[in-house]
């Protein structure tokens, strides 16, 4: 019966069977390593002024205004003046997304960038521009930016990526070794 000790002891004999899967897994992991991004998520809530009802049905309509040139251009100008951040409108459009809302009373705006400060600044400024633009379009509604914005790190942790590729490389190697043994013994011949 093979245990972990004998597995690692026997591995030395068939080292190419383990080495090459590990290399392939590492190569695959390298796509994700060094690709960490920060996502800043903020919300704008819309409420009718008279009956104080949340405006959940119209949120998908408001989402279509997010990438309107008025919003993007004013956010771009504010980013340069207030934050000393120079980004093109195309980069701003590419970095900012809004998630589809099925029900709920808030419009979700997410800004993604490698630099955490850039993500925060772009998210905050686009949200502020959207808030003021919506305010002029919807004079009968009360708008509010949710103060609980979140900042999240996205992407593979290099240590986890290396560990997982090492383990999957070993598993693939062992699979290959078992397959070759059984084929050698003729167990797989029909």
């Amino acid at each position, binding site marked *: 019966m093979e245990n972990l000790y004998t597995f690692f002891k026997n591995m030395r004999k068939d080292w190419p069977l383990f080495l090459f899967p590990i290399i392939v897994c590492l190569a695959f992991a390298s796509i994700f390593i060094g690709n960490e991004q920060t996502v800043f998520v*903020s919300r704008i809530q819309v409420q009718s002024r008279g009956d104080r009802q949340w405006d959940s049905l119209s949120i998908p309509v408001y989402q279509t205004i997010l990438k309107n040139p008025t919003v993007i251009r004013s956010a771009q100008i504010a980013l340069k*003046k*207030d*934050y*000393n*951040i*120079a*980004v093109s409108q195309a*980069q701003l459009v590419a970095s900012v997304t809004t998630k589809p809302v099925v029900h709920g009373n808030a419009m979700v705006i997410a800004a993604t*960038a*490698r*630099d955490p*400060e*850039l993500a*925060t*600044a772009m998210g*905050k400024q686009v*949200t*502020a521009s959207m*808030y*003021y633009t919506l305010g002029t379009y919807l004079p009968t509604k009360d708008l509010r*930016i949710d*103060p609980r*914005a979140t*900042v999240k790190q996205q992407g593979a942790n290099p240590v986890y990526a290396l560990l997982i590729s090492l383990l999957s490389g070993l598993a693939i190697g062992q699979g290959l070794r078992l397959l070759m043994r059984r084929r050698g013994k003729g167990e797989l011949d029909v």
Partner: protein
Amino acid sequence: MSSKRQNRIRNGLIATAILLVIGLVSYWKSSSTLVINFVDENGTPVTAPLKTIGRPNAVYNLTAAKVPGYTLNRTHYQFKYTYGTSQQQVIYHPDTVASLDKLLKAKYIGVSAQDITTNTFNGVQSTPYEQSDNRLRVLYANRLNDWHTFSTNYPDVAIQDPTLFQLGEFWFIAYTGGVLRSTDLSNWDVIATTPSPKFHNVIAPSLVHVGKKTDMIFMATVPKRKELASFVAPFNETTGQPKLTQAKRIRGVTGPSTSASLYQGRTGYYLTYSEQDSGVVYIKKSKTITGKYRLVRKIVPVKGSFYYAPTFALDEAGKVRGIVYSSYYYDESGDLAYNGAFMQSKILTKTPPIQLTGQFAFQKFSVIKLGAD
């Protein structure tokens, strides 16, 4: 040509095409951030860093801003940077001699902290990031609504809540964490306050003449409790350290507050502080330095804003010339936005506040009036 050779060429071409497509896609999708820091000769940021996103190896053309009182070692202000090199520096050289000449002739001198993570726009500076980063600024003015930043090489130390104090030929600037000492406001002794077992953090300190001695007023966590309280301790000008073992609590500061300022008048001691929750500035009086202080006057902020960090403006003889306080509010994103400092020329009666304006939105501001009237 044999079919074997043809196959080999065809496979090679397919592999090359696949690699080319992968390379092109990753090139178009890749982006890199370029950060350009604008610093003085000490490496202290002069303005907020410029951040820009671009494709690796693309060129970014920068026209550096003209900062009053500072020059670059070149005739033109055009720079070319390549994306991919993460941090770059533009070094500004201060014209200290000319600036010092103006400072010495000015009527007022003050210190404040500038948040160097963002810019001030229309007199307002908001702090959007989780951490702010402040640097010292010395300012001078002939008119209270027209302050100029003294151009020098500032110490590259995070400075919060600075207060100015003059003793003989020395200028002392007390800040949260330590004291700066200088004779020319260009060369700085940075003296970090040594914590004592009872006081781990000395917050928002200020120095004050009491008789012929110098005392330090500061906020600190009350031992064994979590609330902040104000204390007074003797200050040693030679070592730049307060004698924390002799610190005594000041009584009469009610409600949570983060800074307090004090001065010795003819008939007693005056204390000012602001309550954090309401933003109301209190001026209180007592016969002894440790109190208990009793209310003399309140300054209530306009709706939506909060006043904080009040300080007494003194002249060189130590006589009070007014009260200075700063203001902030929360903007539409819920960020703290500084909208400047104000000064009232009387402390016991209401006088119209004068807004202290300059090249950035002032945070805690400490003013000394220079020369005779």
